[in-house]
């Protein structure tokens, strides 16, 4: 199976650090990417490759991984960080080619 799983919701106090996880087989970097989606909008890319960030993404956001868990860490959480976070994994050698996690809703308290 190429499924990846995410917690459905996570909360963080304003200014604190939060980690969102993506668990499954072969989810190690550089094969995982992360996206944020705000209500009514298309997702936007946050992390790709080995902890690479597009230029417009805050350096408060970083990615890491172990063998079966990829993580997205947001330091100094802000209200603007609220949204749903999706991980995506490319199954290099088989189908499906691309898998998305179910998404984690982040609430900033």
């Amino acid at each position, binding site marked *: 199976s190429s499924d990846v799983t995410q917690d459905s919701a996570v909360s963080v106090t304003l200014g604190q650090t939060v980690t969102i996880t993506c668990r499954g087989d072969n989810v190690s970097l*550089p*094969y*995982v*990417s992360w*996206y944020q989606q705000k209500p009514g909008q*298309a*997702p*936007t*890319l946050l992390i*790709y*490759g*080995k902890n*690479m960030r*597009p230029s417009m993404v805050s350096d408060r956001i970083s990615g890491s991984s172990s063998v079966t868990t990829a993580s997205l860490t947001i330091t100094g959480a802000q209200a603007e960080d609220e949204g749903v976070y*999706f991980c*995506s994994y*490319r199954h*290099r050698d088989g*189908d*499906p*080619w*691309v*898998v*998305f*996690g*179910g*998404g984690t809703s982040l609430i900033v308290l």
Partner: protein
Amino acid sequence: EVQLVQSGAEIKEAGDSLKISCKASGYIFVRFWIGWVRQMPEKGLEWLGLVYPGDADVRYSPSFQGHVTVSADTSLTTAYLKWATLKSSDSATYFCVRGPLYGGTIFFDYWGPGTLVAVS
């Protein structure tokens, strides 16, 4: 500036055919995968398929293969998603995505605004 401009919302009946489009600009069209991601109401993201316009290679999710067709017209720098026979379960928002390959992985760096498809 990279832009993905998608066609407008569609209201269809089950059994109809449909083709939606994604006009790409601001980059060399034939050098990047381009494709589609579905989001059903209040649900997560599902990848449908990708096409590499440079050689017309197409990859599909097994969940959607045979039900949709992904294609691209290099002269128009436009990608398409086509259904021959719509079902009510196809009702969703469909996002066009650009997919660079990087270090053996693929990710989606640009997303279109989405095309809402409603099937009754």
